[in-house]
Each structure stands twice: as C-alpha cells, then as structure tokens.
C-alpha cells in the first residue's frame, strides 16, 4: 500500500477529512503520504503479539467529582466568535441544508 498513493485515494481521504485540495496538493500529498507511510512500515515489522495498545498514559483518573451545578459560558460569549450567527435567536448559522 505504502509504495504508491493514487489521486483517487488522496481524494477519498480528503473527502473524509472535509478538506478541499487543489490539484497540486493532491499530487504533493500522494507522493509525501506514500513516503511517510513507507517510513512507518518499520513499525509494522515489530512483533506485537499479545501487547496491549496504549491510548493514554493516564493511570489515575480525576474525573469523578460531585455533581454540582456550576456556571457556563453565556450565550452571547459563545456566539461572539461565530462567522455567522443570529444573536437575537441565539443560534449559529450555516448554509441552508434543507430545501
């Protein structure tokens, strides 16, 4: 796989990532992703039989806490950075989705 990356494959990944790419970017990434993944094949050659994966190094969680109501962001503050929002309605706006 890693030895070659087609334009179609790059375009499929870009669609998953919600990323519009120019023609030159598609060509560049086809080459570079192949090179990087080729380099990463050294990981695939390591014997990991029976080795559990590490997703996080956290061993003691501090997530448990009393369920107490606390303040949160005010609606105007939450909307203040939106490129398009209705402050009166208190809503973010996106291009029309339903006809």
């Amino acid at each position, binding site marked *: 796989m890693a030895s070659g990356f087609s334009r179609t494959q790059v375009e499929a990944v870009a669609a998953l990532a919600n990323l519009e790419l120019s023609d030159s970017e598609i060509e560049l990434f086809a080459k570079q992703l192949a090179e990087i993944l080729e380099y990463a094949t050294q990981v695939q050659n390591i014997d990991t039989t029976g080795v559990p994966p590490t997703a996080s190094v956290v061993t003691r969680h501090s997530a448990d806490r009393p369920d107490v109501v606390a303040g949160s962001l005010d609606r105007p503050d*939450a909307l203040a950075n939106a490129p398009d929002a209705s402050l009166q309605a208190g809503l973010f706006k996106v291009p029309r989705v339903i006809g």
Partner: protein
Amino acid sequence: MSGVGTIRDVRDDVQNGTRKATDVCEQVLAQISARDPKLHAFNTVMHERALACAAAVDRHPQRATLPLAGVPVALKDNLCTRGVRTTASSKILETFVPPFDATVVKHLEAAGAVIVGKTNCDEFAMGSSTENSAFGVTRNPWALDRIPGGSSGGSAVAVAADMVPLALGSDTGGSIRQPAALCGIVGLKPTYGRVSRYGLLAFASSLDQIGPLTQTVGDAALALSVIAGVDPADATSAPERVPDYATALKGDRRTLTIGVPRALVEEGVDPEVAGAFKAALETLREAGAKLVDIVLPYAGAAIPVYYLVATAEASSNLARYDGVRYGYRATLPARATTQGGMHDDLRAMYGRTRAEGFGVEVKRRIMLGTYVLSAGYYDAYYLKAQQVRTLIRQDYERAFEHVDVVAMPTSPTPAFKLGERVSDPLQMYLADVFTVSANLAGLPAVSVPCGFTTANLPIGLQLTGRMFDEATLLAAADTYERHTEWWKRHPTL
C-alpha cells in the same frame, strides 16, 4: 544583554520593593519593541493589559508572598487568553478571541505574573522550526538566518533574547525542549497530567503538555510549582500532590544514577552535538553522578509511532475548525442551481473553509491521520502504533528500575538554516528523534544548555525522569547547571 534578569531576580525585587512590577513591565515592553522586529517572537504584544496587571501587582496587599510577583511572561499563542486574540499561528483562528482563560493563565495571574504577549509557533504546534506559521517565521537570536526550533519557537526566542524571563510553551513531541536546546535555554515538559491542558488548543490530546521555558533550572522549578496541579476542567490532569519544586533543588543530593542509551545516541548525531553530549556526561560524573549504559530497544521506532498516533489524534481534534462556531469561514459563490441538493452547500463550505484556513503542514497531518484511522488501515497503522507505544513505555519502565534519569542529546543537530527542510517533511520529522519518546511514555523531560558549536550555535542536553518525579529530574538538571556556565551566555543582538 539588558533584560530584567531571571524569574528569581524579578520576583525577589518586586516582593521586597526594590523594583516595581510596573517598571519591570515597562522595561520588558521596551525590550520587545527594540528586539522583536528582527526576531518576530511575538504574534501579539499586550501593552495595556500588561501594564494594568503590573500596576495591580504593585498595589497588591500580599505582594511579598506572591510566588511570581511582577514576573513578565510570554505565552505560546495556542494558550487561550480571555479577550486577547489566540491564533495558534493559523489563518483559521486569525481573529479568534477566547471567552475564557486557560487554567495555566489563571494560575500565573493569581501568582502575580504579568502576561505581556502571545508568541509565534508552528501552526497548531505542528512543526519543529516555527516556519509553519501563517504569520511569518521566527529567527534564532544566535544566528538570524537559522530556525529557532519549534513548535514553541517564539517562546524560546522571547526568553533567549532577554525579552522575558519566562515563557510557556506546549510539547507534543519535543516542542518545548527542542527550541529550548536550539536557543540555549532551559525547557521543561512535565509529566503528562501534571499541568492542566484546559484552554490549550488541542493538537494530540494524549501527548500534549504545557511547560515553562526559562534561563535557569531553578526558574523552571518556580514556574512549574505555580502551573502544576489537578483541575476539574481537565479530566486527564493528575490528582498527585504537587511538591515545592524550588525546595526540592535545595535539599541534600543523594547520588544520582544516570542511564545512557548508547546505541540510540551514537547514530545520526552531528559530531559537535555528540562531543558536547559526551562532555556533559563527564561533567555529571565529576559532579558525583553514576553513569550506567542502558538499552531502549524500541525507542528507535518512536518517530514513526509518534507520527501515526499524533496525526490520528490531530485529524480528530482539528475537525472542530469548520467555519461554524468560531474562526474563519470561506465565502462561496451562490449556486445557480440546487443540483446535488442543499446539503452539498454545507459540505462545500466546510471543505473550502478548511482549504483556505489551514496551512500545508496541517493539511498533510490531517490527511495522514484521517488515513491511518480509516476503515481497513486502522489495525495496520494506528492500533499497531499504539501497541509499539506500550513497548516504548515498557523500555523506560525497565530502565527506571536501575536509573534515576535518562540522558540524551535534545536534538541530533544544532539549529538548521531557514528554508532548509521545509520541502522535506520526513527530514523535518527526524529532528524529533530524541524527544518524542518522552511524550509517548508520558514522562517528564528537560533540556538544559550543554555547549556551543564552533559556529556559536547552542546545544542542549536532555534528561528524562520517572512519571511525576520532576523533583529528581530538576535536581539532576540543576546539578549539571551548577557545574557549568553555558546558561550564562546570551546572544549578541
């Protein structure tokens, strides 16, 4: 050099009234105005807010007890500051003004520190040279045609060029330690969970950690004591007790055992870096440390593991930048027809916004991360990388049964020339060969100045410690610092 001195100098003077926080702040702002046009360490300088904050410190009734009284601080521009633009050096966040402060910002201000500005970095902390910024490069104060390292390059330069005594950075694969090494200062990445990440714009959440860049190890200890601790707003922050790290440096020193992974550090290292590293080990031995050869069999695979894990997490974290709730939104021409359905307009807005808002390195990493997480490739790349990550952790666990800290060079080369590696991402990634394993294993690690090349470029020594044992790590680094004078050198500007 006409800086304000170390954190300790400023803190002591402001606490006992020898200097006013306002005077220190004005001197720092003048120094930034004089030096930053050449270096571009800062994206934003907060003149008014800094002076108001300094004045408040001068009026503070308990000024004499504030642990960072009047200490000017620069923050990497991926740390949220309420009411002050926070960009992560990305076009997509060029106008983003956070409605809240990062937890570290609250800790700093409560301790009497004065935040003076936001520093340049690689976009979303992705890079090793600070060249991937949407707002231009930062220059190394030791050689203006060279990179300062990255991604916290602006923070390193702000301290190295005597503009501020303290800067905070973030370190996902070496982004505090490598620029500290390349700029001749101290950079500390604490244990994962030691410092709250709340308000840090996320890159790779299982690896990111905030830490200080300072002139001395003692200063790093002072800063860490202020920013460390559990935080209800970050579920991964650790409940472990926070010791007074500055006190930990003063106590009786038991004999340190230092592990040296010979096989790892003898390959692909610049000869002058290798020479400085060898001399640093000799200095530590003369200072009473015991040197032991160790093996880290899987550390050689750390770079590919890192670039699979970090990009996977990044592709997920950066999905939030879609032009809806904050940041840049692309303007699309109105469609003449509804062919394809309205839904396509929304998809096009997402795709175009991200195309115009992100730089090429960020796009490359989103693409790689999306690919390794996608159906059919997840097991072969992402899961496999997580398994090797376990083996790398176990390497260190075994080593720490016999040694207190592990020594390596921080970077295999001194600062390279601007532009030298921008077109070769793989070559750029190799700059992180000695730093990424501490992130994968969650361990604390520090870079301290350990020499200069014949071209007068700084070289860094990296020490890595046990989880949550920053006290021993800093004591080892402090021991080295006490027996050397590299840290006293300042660039001529």
